């Protein structure tokens, strides 16, 4: 992996603000403490890269960064700047519209090519799958990025229980469809419900997370409560929110974005600075909470971990 040239120092006042904020939440030290322990393999395989974020920080040491040393996105930004078109296309309007969204009771219908189909409730999910904390960068296709401490469990844990049949090649996710409480779903341009999918090897990858919380708190509706996918090396729209249905399938699922704008959004949607969106460049990005732009990195900085999944593939063709 290429050495990053942008581990610049965050302005101290901002840094202190965020540190104070974390302290207030009472998770300053604990936030990254589980990070190293939860990985089968380290975030970064190369030895020449800064590792300060990977090594658990001592309490109150102010080490709330991701593994490249970038400060985590402020909680208030994570919960107030959201793309969730089920509510509205206005990123800063989602939180208000989603305020009363009911996420309990909740269950996920498991189906398709699996040995153990059927519904699974959030209660069962919480009991069966202990969560761990993972700090991931989340790069939106629009060109902004956040670093978020998620609570979740690997999707592979669920897959081991539901047992995909040998004919299953892909996993297909569906979000909730409830136009009565989700006003954005009255926009008929989009073929609701929201659908996303992964290739099975992507789904089994250790980085692929089913998240139920951020910053030690349960997910809020605007962030995809009660349970969502997080695939950190792909553009944010792949990380489907408020999941109600999971199917194992043989054919490549057609996502909502593939259906709405097939020339602009492909199935893979891997973060890739060299493949532009047809209408804008993907070479740079801005971290929420900062002003200057940074170069976007291949697979959002997770090339060591996921690059092998795409060996021999033309990523321009499979965008």
């Amino acid at each position, binding site marked *: 992996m290429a050495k990053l040239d942008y581990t610049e120092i965050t302005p101290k006042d901002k840094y202190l603000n965020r540190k104070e904020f974390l302290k207030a939440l009472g998770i300053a030290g604990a936030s990254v403490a589980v990070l190293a322990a939860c990985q089968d393999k380290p975030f970064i395989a190369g030895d020449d890269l800064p590792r300060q974020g990977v090594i658990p920080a001592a309490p109150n040491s102010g080490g709330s960064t991701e593994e490249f040393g970038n400060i985590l996105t402020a909680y208030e930004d994570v919960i*107030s700047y959201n793309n969730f078109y089920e509510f509205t*296309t206005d*990123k*800063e309007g989602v939180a208000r519209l989603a305020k009363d969204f009911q996420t309990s009771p909740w269950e996920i219908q498991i189906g398709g090519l699996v040995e153990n189909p059927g519904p699974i409730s959030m209660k069962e999910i919480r009991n069966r799958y202990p969560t761990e904390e993972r700090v991931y960068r989340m790069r939106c296709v629009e060109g902004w990025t956040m670093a978020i401490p998620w609570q979740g469990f690997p999707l592979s844990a669920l897959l081991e229980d539901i047992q995909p049949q040998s004919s299953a090649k892909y996993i297909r996710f569906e979000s909730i469809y409830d136009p009565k409480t989700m006003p954005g779903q009255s926009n008929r341009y989009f073929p609701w419900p929201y659908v996303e999918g992964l290739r099975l090897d992507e789904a089994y990858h250790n980085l692929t997370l089913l998240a139920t919380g951020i910053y030690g708190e349960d997910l809020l509706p605007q962030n995809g409560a009660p349970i969502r996918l997080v695939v950190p090396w792909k553009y944010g729209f792949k990380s489907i929110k408020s999941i109600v249905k999971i199917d194992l399938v043989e054919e490549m699922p057609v996502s909502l974005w593939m259906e*709405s*704008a097939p020339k602009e959004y492909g199935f893979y949607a891997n973060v890739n600075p060299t493949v532009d969106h047809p209408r*804008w*460049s993907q070479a740079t990005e*801005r971290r929420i909470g900062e002003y200057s*732009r940074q170069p976007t990195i291949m697979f959002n900085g997770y090339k060591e971990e996921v690059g092998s999944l795409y060996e021999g593939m033309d990523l321009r063709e499979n965008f």
Partner: protein
Amino acid sequence: MKVWISEKISKPWRENRKILASILHLLIHVGSLLPLLVGLWDFWQGNLGANPILEVTHRSGKTALTTLILSLSITPLRQLLKWNQINKLRRPLGLYAAFYAGVHLSIYVILDYGFLWGALLANSLTNKFILVGSAAGTILLVLAITSLNLFRRKMGASWKQLHRFVYGAGVLAGLHFILAVKPGVLRPWPYAAILLLLLSYRLPPVQTWVKKTR
């Protein structure tokens, strides 16, 4: 139409339209400067949300488009309401449109990209909406400079022809907005609809009809 204009509102209208035009003139200056002042205040106060640069980019762009639309609505209003006094509002509105387009472009080049010319060039080549927006901005800039009386006198008849390019700027500005958002996002369409209406008003058959009814 004729009846409506000459009978129904004619008397109070004739008496008050001059003063109304002056009030409108003042309102245009206040209303056009307000977005700048509010923007600076919000920047100062940190009220611009999680992505402040994008927020001010959007605000300046929308203000540019709004003032451009208002400037394009002066002639139809003047003709339909026989309100010649509002003609003088066209120039300040056009200048505000050019000003906010300049602010919009400066935010993009200076604040957003920090003069990263390489990235800016790459963007201009790949991003249709950047090209379209730049074209609209260039037209507005040229029209703003040549709006000086000096140019108006010197250019004679060709001045009017040059300033018809404002219609092109309108089309390009609307297109710029549409291309900048994801498909299915409806925010540009109210602007586009009004622009379409105002531009259709300039079509020869519509103009013939307008002149007939006057």
